[in-house]
């Protein structure tokens, strides 16, 4: 009754009235403004820093360096190798060196100009392929961050069995998250002697832990609150402003505000990893894929961030949503002095989808098969073994998503020569990879007769608040008026993990469901479902602790064994097929995306409107990834030279929701946030090939690149 519908988002009313408070809208009396002095060198030793003129500048209160850090200067989600403030040397352009605190933003920004740093340039590693053997070490243990292999069957035998072999190299570039709200936050000391940070973030509990390490104080001394957040897409998972703010409050005991300009955001925020993908596919005459060999080389910049995750996830998903008996994937992630790359919607899999979907079309072409049929023939189904030999037992909807677009594919017809049609398929493991990644949720009955849901899950625009409330409503049979959501505060919630990896509906949803079942049993015993009001139950309960029920869910996974490559790294997978129609103007190389049919197996759509919203948004990002978005270091500074899709670039979209229910998910739900994006660029590239006969191997395939390819093809 409360799920599977088109319920309006619970935060929409406030948002259309312009009322939500984003971090930048918070002001604290007497707040200082903090800004960051950043490196202008890709790799250099710091010989001298002179802050005297800056300190003497009007309105400057303090300048902080790495020497002012009482605890650990290094942070990172997996490997703690990134300094908050550079120590002795800088390893990329934009690396923070100093924090300048002024009475006003103007004073602080002016003082930045007065800081003098003398650098001694070091050898720069700008290419991941040269990184491994470079004598310039970015970290003491070498420049290889991570190497993951996935091996299944016998690759040589697989290629021997093949009648055709297709081999190509694909590459992608840096992309910016370009969330509309830049990184921002406010901090202050509270009356209990703690430091409070309110920021734009995707994960409050992780940030609480990092700040406690930075300041060498217990976690209880730090409180992190999520302000209304203007988009994340992975870019607000790493510590952005939070550490700087906490350190500044620690030293000044005054409120501190920070907000990155757009230019600063482009310069300093993590990027999508550029990947170089060498891909070899073998197939029999009848279309069955016999072998896939993939080499992946990635550039994570000077710090790990989510580089290991991308290295691993890219490897695990390299074969695409197909059953391949013989697999050899070798994925390597290198440190360089390029921009720091991190988590961005899909963790390397959109890049891999570009490769495996291009390969599928090329194999089909050699075999004179229809690209649809070859996908259908090889698609994963119940009982299939993935590349890690995980047996897929439930909720394997890839074939159903193919069937949804099949009628449109079969009846496609080119009205003009310049038109083209392409398919893109994907699968995506929901949640973190082969590790425990639980969520907590807590319910309690309030004195005014409501059920309060306490969750640490961060609403970043994707709609998790609404989804979690709907799951609660459905389980308890309660109207929205009877529910209070208390969210995004480390004081009132236990860890729900990050809003990333398309995990909140499935995992936090599971935790809410777990708590709600316990609450339902309690309410039932107390006569609620026979008409006794909640308020009365509250009043009659002597032990108020009984009014509270905790929920927990941790998806059942096993890590992938580095030796055998076997494991079940994800408890469930989402599946999708996109079919895209494009038009390419041969005179200019301009590609217009006309129409997309997008079919997604989400397990169960808790909220159809939100699911569609995620898919439309993912398609927009996929259009950008395929055709226009490219962060060029030193060149891309803001939206005037980083192009992302506007309303004029959006195709018409038809969405098909497939609900192959996941037994471990709340009401069968999985996730859709990242799956929405993953197959889109791939389907555009295949459509470009169909329209022009030319295949792009490098993304973005922007107007100049496509024009060049068209000219080359003419000979």
């Amino acid at each position: 009754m409360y799920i599977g519908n088109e319920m309006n988002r619970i935060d929409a009313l406030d948002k259309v009235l312009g009322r939500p408070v984003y971090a930048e809208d918070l002001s604290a009396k007497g707040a200082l403004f903090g800004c960051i002095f950043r490196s202008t060198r890709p790799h250099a030793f710091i010989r001298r820093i002179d802050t005297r003129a800056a300190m003497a500048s009007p309105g400057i209160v303090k300048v902080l360096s790495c020497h002012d850090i009482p605890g650990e200067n290094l942070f990172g989600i997996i490997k703690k190798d990134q300094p908050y403030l550079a120590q002795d040397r800088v390893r990329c352009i934009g690396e923070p060196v100093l924090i300048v605190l002024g009475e006003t933003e103007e004073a602080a920004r002016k003082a930045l100009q007065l800081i003098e740093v003398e650098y001694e340039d070091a050898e720069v590693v700008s290419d991941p392929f040269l990184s491994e053997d470079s004598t310039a070490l970015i970290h003491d243990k070498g420049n290889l961050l991570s190497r993951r292999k996935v091996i299944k069957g016998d690759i040589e035998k697989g290629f021997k069995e093949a009648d055709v072999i297709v081999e190509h190299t694909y590459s992608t570039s840096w992309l910016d998250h370009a969330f509309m709200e830049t990184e921002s936050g406010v901090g202050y000391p509270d009356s209990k002697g703690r430091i409070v940070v309110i920021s734009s973030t995707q994960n409050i509990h992780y940030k609480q832990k990092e700040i406690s390490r930075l300041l060498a104080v217990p976690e209880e001394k730090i409180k992190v609150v999520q302000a209304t957040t203007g988009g994340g897409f992975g870019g607000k998972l790493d510590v952005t402003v939070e550490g700087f703010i906490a350190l500044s409050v620690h030293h000044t005991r005054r409120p501190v505000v920070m907000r990155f300009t757009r230019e600063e955001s482009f310069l300093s925020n993590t990027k999508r990893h550029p990947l170089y993908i060498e891909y070899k596919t073998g197939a029999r005459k009848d279309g069955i894929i016999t072998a896939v060999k993939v080499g992946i080389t990635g550039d994570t910049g000077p710090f790990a961030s989510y580089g290991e995750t991308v290295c691993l996830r890219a490897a695990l998903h390299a074969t695409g949503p197909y059953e391949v008996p013989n697999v050899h994937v070798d994925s390597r992630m290198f440190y360089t002095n390029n921009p720091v790359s991190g988590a961005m919607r899909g963790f390397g899999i959109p890049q891999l989808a570009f490769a495996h979907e291009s390969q599928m079309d090329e194999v089909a072409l050699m075999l004179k098969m229809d690209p649809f049929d070859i996908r259908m023939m090889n698609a994963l189904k119940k009982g299939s073994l993935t590349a890690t030999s995980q047996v897929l037992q439930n909720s394997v909807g890839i074939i159903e998503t193919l069937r949804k677009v099949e009628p449109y594919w079969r009846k496609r017809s080119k009205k003009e020569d310049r038109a083209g049609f392409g398919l893109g398929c994907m699968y995506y493991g929901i949640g973190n990879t082969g590790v425990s990644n639980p969520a907590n949720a807590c319910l309690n009955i309030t004195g005014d007769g409501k059920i309060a849901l306490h969750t640490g899950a961060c609403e970043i625009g994707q709609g998790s608040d609404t989804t979690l409330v709907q799951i609660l409503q459905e389980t308890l049979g309660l109207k929205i008026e009877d529910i209070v959501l208390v969210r995004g505060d480390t004081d009132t919630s236990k860890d729900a993990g990050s809003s990333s990896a398309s995990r909140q509906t499935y995992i936090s949803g599971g935790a809410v469901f777990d708590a709600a079942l316990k609450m339902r049993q309690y309410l039932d015993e107390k006569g609620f479902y026979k008409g006794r009001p909640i308020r009365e139950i509250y009043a009659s309960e002597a032990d108020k602790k009984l009014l509270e029920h905790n929920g927990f869910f941790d998806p059942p996974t096993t890590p992938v064994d580095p030796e055998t490559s076997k494991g079940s790294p994800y408890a469930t997978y989402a599946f999708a097929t996109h079919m895209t129609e494009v038009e390419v103007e041969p005179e200019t190389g301009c590609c217009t995306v006309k129409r997309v049919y997008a079919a997604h197996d989400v397990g169960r759509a808790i909220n159809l409107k939100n699911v569609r919203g995620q898919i439309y948004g993912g398609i927009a990002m996929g259009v950008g990834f395929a055709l226009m978005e490219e962060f060029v270091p030193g060149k891309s500074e803001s939206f005037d030279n980083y192009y992302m899709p506007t309303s004029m670039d959006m195709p018409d979209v038809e969405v098909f929701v497939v609900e192959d229910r996941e037994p471990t998910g709340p009401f069968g739900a999985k996730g859709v946030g990242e799956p929405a994006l993953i197959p889109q660029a791939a389907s555009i590239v295949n459509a470009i090939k169909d329209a022009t006969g030319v295949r792009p191997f490098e993304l973005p395939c922007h107007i100049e690149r496509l024009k060049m390819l068209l000219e080359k093809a003419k000979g």
Partner: protein
Amino acid sequence: MKIVSFALNGKKVSCEVQDRELLLHALRERFSIKSVKEGCGIGECGTCTVLIDNEPHYSCLTLASKVDGHDVKTVEYLGDAGLLHPLQKAFIEAGAVQCGYCTPGMLLSAYSLLMKNENPSDSEIREAISGNLCRCTGYIQIVEAIRDAAGLCKCKP
């Protein structure tokens, strides 16, 4: 410093502004209108959109002193919780809101369009909001919302 007088959301206001002060900052700091957002500061993203004499303008590129004698509207003009404007209602119903950061500017560009064109085509709608970037929604539900509101709307000044 200069005194400027203008209509802000239908009310006459005046205040002292600095010569180089941007309308964006004057609205946020002097009038506490925080719905006007600074997404880029260079007139590319549209989150700072306001209506000046019912035409959309980037307030990050507009000097506060230039609105003297003019009519300025922000999203607060459209409606309140008790009486939503049809556009606001349609944005909620269509799912046109995700993170919400672009929403006020988007609504104002839409409002300005419907004032001039009561029955716009989809391509006219897309064009009207093409100066407002949104990273979350892919624009489709926003276009739907504007189309849905068009018939119901009295977007007269």
